């Protein structure tokens, strides 16, 4: 996005040398420039601080144990996050399935059936859903699923999936609309029905963009602990069965960070480092993919 013809570069000296500029205007200009730069430094500083802090405090306890052990019993040091890592993977798989099926279908609906009477409603509700606090989604899934079936990985995955839907709808709609109309017309001119045009021509052309959107959505919900508190609940034992309570990385971090036990807090810091690196890598990869595409 550097479309504008006037950038700071071409007009670096906005007032030509020799022109008179009152000292007042000149100093206001310099002062505001300095203030803006300072503001930017303040905005970026916390991110660097968090990263350095987590490396300094958490990297030391990232041993093989962290990835291969489950949390130690109360009062004992050591242990790892194997249960949380597997739990996160399983619940993200469930969430991804829900998010992709409903989200991409919603995106196709908004992009390909723009004259359908339900179109404005679905777009508006999808937009509004993207702003619902994650903890409220957790409450909804609690009374929808947990009240009847108990805490489970399925419930946690469902909560995360519901959070993914609006993000996937939005990105897949935008990407599908980038596919030129001429491509669709070409397909129809060959005598293909609309569903073949969409599934065999439009969707494949938009696949990489949709994958990017799904990755970003997964990265976003991978860090959510709030909706899991009353759905997946957490489990200190290794559990691969999504019908029972499960742990997830952010949720285990929350429990350990607020536990008051020093060894658990160290583990939480190591877990935060792992989580943040994974999320950054995923969004970096997604960003790379989009940039190459355009």
């Amino acid at each position: 996005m550097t479309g504008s013809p006037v950038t700071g570069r071409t007009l670096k000296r906005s007032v030509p040398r020799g022109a008179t500029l009152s000292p007042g205007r000149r100093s206001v200009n310099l002062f505001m420039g300095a203030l803006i730069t300072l503001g930017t430094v303040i905005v970026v500083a916390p991110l660097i601080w968090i990263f350095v802090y987590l490396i300094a405090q958490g990297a030391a306890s990232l041993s093989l144990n962290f990835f291969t052990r489950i949390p130690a019993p109360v009062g004992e040091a050591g242990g790892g996050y194997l249960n949380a890592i597997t739990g996160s993977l399983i619940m993200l798989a469930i969430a991804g399935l829900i998010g992709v099926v409903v989200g991409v279908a919603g995106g196709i609906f908004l992009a390909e059936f723009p004259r359908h009477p339900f179109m404005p409603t679905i777009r508006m509700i999808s937009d509004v859903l993207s702003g619902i606090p994650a903890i409220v989604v957790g409450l909804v899934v609690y009374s929808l699923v947990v009240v009847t079936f108990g805490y489970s990985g399925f419930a946690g995955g469902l909560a995360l999936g519901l959070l993914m839907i609006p993000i996937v709808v939005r990105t897949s709609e935008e990407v599908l609309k980038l596919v030129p109309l001429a491509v669709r017309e070409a397909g129809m001119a060959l005598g293909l029905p609309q569903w073949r045009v969409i599934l065999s021509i439009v969707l494949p052309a938009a696949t990489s963009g949709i994958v990017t959107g799904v990755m970003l959505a997964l990265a976003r919900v991978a860090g959510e602990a709030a909706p899991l508190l009353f759905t997946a609940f957490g489990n200190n034992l290794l559990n691969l069965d999504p019908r029972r309570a499960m742990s997830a990385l952010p949720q285990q971090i929350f429990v350990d960070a607020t536990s008051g036990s020093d060894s658990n807090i160290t583990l939480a810091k190591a877990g935060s480092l792992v989580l943040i690196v994974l999320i950054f890598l995923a969004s970096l990869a997604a960003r790379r993919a989009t940039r190459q595409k355009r």
Partner: protein
Amino acid sequence: MTTPLSVPERPSSPKRPSPNSRGDGVFRNLILGLSLIIIAVFVLSIYLLAKDSLPAIREFGLGFLTQTVWNPVTQKFGAASMIAGTLITSFAALVISVPLALASAIFVAEYAPKWLANPVSYLVELLAAVPSVVYGLWALFALKPIIQNFQLSLYTSNPDLVTRCATLRGEGRSSFACFFMPEAPVGLGLTLAIVVLTIMILPYTASVARDVIRLVPGDQREAMYALGATKWEVISRAILPFARAGITGGVILALGRALGETLAVAMVIGNVPELAKTIWGSTATMASMIANQFGDAQAQLHRSSIIELGLLLFFVSVVVNYSARLIIVRLTPKGIQ
């Protein structure tokens, strides 16, 4: 943005569907059915939250919004202090974060050369990707000691005020100066929550503002420069007024985030269901209260009151998000959709 495409609907006679639209009806209904899940989720959410909070609504009525007593022992629940906590933290965070976010957006779009602008805007986007728990953990173990030290230095430098405030509080009163004097140097509380929230919502305003500032037409800048304006005059009089609709939308989106932010706030605000007595004091927000008490709530009325908090949050975020979209769509000058 691309303009909405309209796929021409082929004329099909009702009697004999043309051979090349075979299967279209099935496909359309399948897609429509899956899309209707989105509406179903929305309606179901309202129904379930409303159904579960009915006991609390029946018991407390509108008093739920105005009463500050939240006591699981006596089964009296009023959300006023949590509503106040949510509003205070969110708006304070908004007031601090908007100028900073604008500064970073202007820096990226107008000041920085390209080699610097891309990394900076990427870093700002990463700020949005940091999970809430990680912010909470950082605030709890890196920021809290700093705030504690500051509170201690307030204590040691104003011993007279400390004793005066203690007596005033004993009588249930307060004064303007005491409002800034911590009750105890614990670190946790309103101020720490506001600081964390400020950092967390920065990227939302910043990235929307950056995008709309970049969309301001070059002519707009050139015309102002041609009048001999300095860079700051161009920014403040030609660019920001042009971009204000988009910026307002971004600010409201950030407000929506702040209102619903849960775990980072829950970890640092203290979670006491009462109004903060000082700017440092412990209090709670609606979201932090849900996270903190729902798991332990056994009594039906307690549980139902917490779900009513969720229902309130749901409606507030629907209204906030809807108006943000409305503002972005309506107020954006034509041509920079």
